[in-house]
């Protein structure tokens, strides 16, 4: 594969150098020259699956867990993968020295505050993967960082040890009470924002969680920055499958691409009212919605 021409993204053949189990997830390290140097927390990568003659044409997207710009092998990229379907299963079964295509870094990263304010980072399931790297950057800027990790059960938590190492305070929640407090992250969040006086809440995880985090943050005077997960076919902005309704700064709702305009959005800009039952409808007041009614 040829290298991409632009300075901000590369498309490379990446070699897997390490893969290990992490609860129900697989944590993989790829040598992906050029990706690490350009990546910021919140960026994602698009991996090809199945080899050069694969019948799975579409790439699979994963948050970058962390990067090492100049490791022993050259720049490496880590991802944390939950095997939910054929593509993710193929990736979790890769062995060291296997290769696959990696495009990245993609999307817009988490915006960082200019001052050292307190922040709460909320991760649901593998959604915590990009947050530790973010926590390190925030602390380098003098921010106090508290983390809440939540999952259905203990084996679906990711990075509890890492959280304790990187954050100033950590709360763990599981739906079934197998680790930490029993319940949802949204139950622990309000007190945490108030106690540390958080100005920003960063979140990554299932859409229901992001919606709850966004309204709690707003109610408690914090800005929510959420990384959404929409089904993507290309990851690079050319297919228009990954859209969701988001208000722009003038208040106009537009169906925007989460792969290029996101995946990080301000929580109070996302039209959560449009999501229900695994579907997202176009709000009646969205830009271009009247154009759809004609035909």
């Amino acid at each position, binding site marked *: *594969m*040829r290298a*991409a*021409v*632009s300075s*901000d*993204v590369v*498309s490379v053949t990446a070699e897997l150098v390490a893969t290990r189990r992490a609860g129900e997830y697989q944590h993989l390290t790829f040598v992906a020259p050029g990706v690490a140097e350009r990546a910021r927390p919140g960026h994602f990568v698009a991996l*090809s699956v199945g080899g050069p003659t694969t*019948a*799975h*044409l*579409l*790439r699979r997207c994963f948050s970058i867990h962390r990067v090492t710009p100049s490791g022993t092998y050259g720049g490496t990229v880590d991802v944390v993968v939950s095997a939910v379907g054929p593509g993710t299963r193929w990736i979790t079964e890769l062995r060291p020295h296997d290769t696959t*295509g990696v*495009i990245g870094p993609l999307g817009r990263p988490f915006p960082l505050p200019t001052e050292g304010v307190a922040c709460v980072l909320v991760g649901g399931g593998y959604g915590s993967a990009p947050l530790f790297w973010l926590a390190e950057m925030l602390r380098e800027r003098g921010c106090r960082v508290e983390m809440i990790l939540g999952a259905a059960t203990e084996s679906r938590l990711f990075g509890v040890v890492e959280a304790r190492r990187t954050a100033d305070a950590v709360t763990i929640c599981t739906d079934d009470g197998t680790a930490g407090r029993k319940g949802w992250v949204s139950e622990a969040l309000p007190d945490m924002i108030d106690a540390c006086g958080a100005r920003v809440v960063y979140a990554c995880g299932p859409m229901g969680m992001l919606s709850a985090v966004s309204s709690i943050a707003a109610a408690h005077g914090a800005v929510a920055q959420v990384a959404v997960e*929409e*089904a993507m*076919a*290309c990851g*690079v*902005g*050319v*297919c*228009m*499958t*990954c*859209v*969701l309704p988001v208000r722009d700064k003038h208040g106009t709702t*537009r*169906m925007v691409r989460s792969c*290029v305009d996101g995946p990080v959005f301000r929580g109070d800009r996302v039209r959560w009212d*449009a999501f229900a039952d*695994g*579907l*997202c*409808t*176009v709000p009646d007041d*969205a*830009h*271009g*919605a*009247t*154009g*759809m009614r*004609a*035909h």
Partner: protein
Amino acid sequence: MSTATDTSRPAADVELRVDLGAAPGRLTLDNPVMTASGCAANGPELHRFFDVRELGAFVTKTVMREPRSGRGTPRMAETPSGMLNSIGLQGPGIAAFVDTDLAWLAAHGARVLVSIAGGTGTEFAEVAATLAASEHVDSVIGVEVNISCPNVANRGQVFACDPGASARVMTLVREALPRDTPIIAKLSPDVTDIVDIASACLKAGASGLTMINTTLGMVVDLDRMRPQVAGVTGGLSGPAVRPIAVRAVWQVASAMREGRLPPAPIIGVGGIRTGRDALELIAVGATAVQVGTATFNDPMAPVRVRDELAEELARRGYASVRNAVGAALT
């Protein structure tokens, strides 16, 4: 109209220039490989991966008169060697398109084939007229008319299924554009006799044909026990549909050879992933090709296919791609 020159030469020493004009020599492309409408956005996204001037032409996402939000999500499902999509022609509307998207493509030296649509014949013509009046029209090498969209006047049946409705659209678009503008009708494979539709379009003023648009399909989400895409049905694309594209191009090109249709350039599209796939469509009569869904797998696919095509031709002893056009027609 555009005179931008190629920025990089493919490895193999094969003449890749092709003529797409209504008359020979009127519209020469540096190479026969284009993007496919709706699979490349409108320029900046792929320009991160390769220079848009390397393409024979850049085919833009189908644009209609008004801004369109597109449908709700999920908008896609992966299928074996392909995908189903139901985007709903999301777009900015023709006015914003010419001001922003076409302006960008013109500024970057792309040769642009603009894909247009409408819910009525009049809307098609209005979109074409706005394009023709644009200050960036010099970058436009032609108009691709996407007739695989619902006809308001006929209970939403797509124009492309009806020779009369297709012909009416071509006539109105022809009247709205300067006489020498190439007009390429993009046909649907979901018809009883594609030669009939091709004939109606060419007689009504189309100067060429693009084949094929997606074919209608459906996928069921068995966890939720409902259709997987919000639009219920969707368009199937990717290598899975390539044999359908080869068949459609072969049928129409054969009819031209036999004198049942006037000769006109054909642009082949459907499932092209490699240079070999491109040559297959060229061999049954396509003069140029478009790369669509494969771009989602490899953003460099259009230029890679161009280079691989040159190698495939060289290996078979062709000095020029023109010599291979229709080589497999009997």
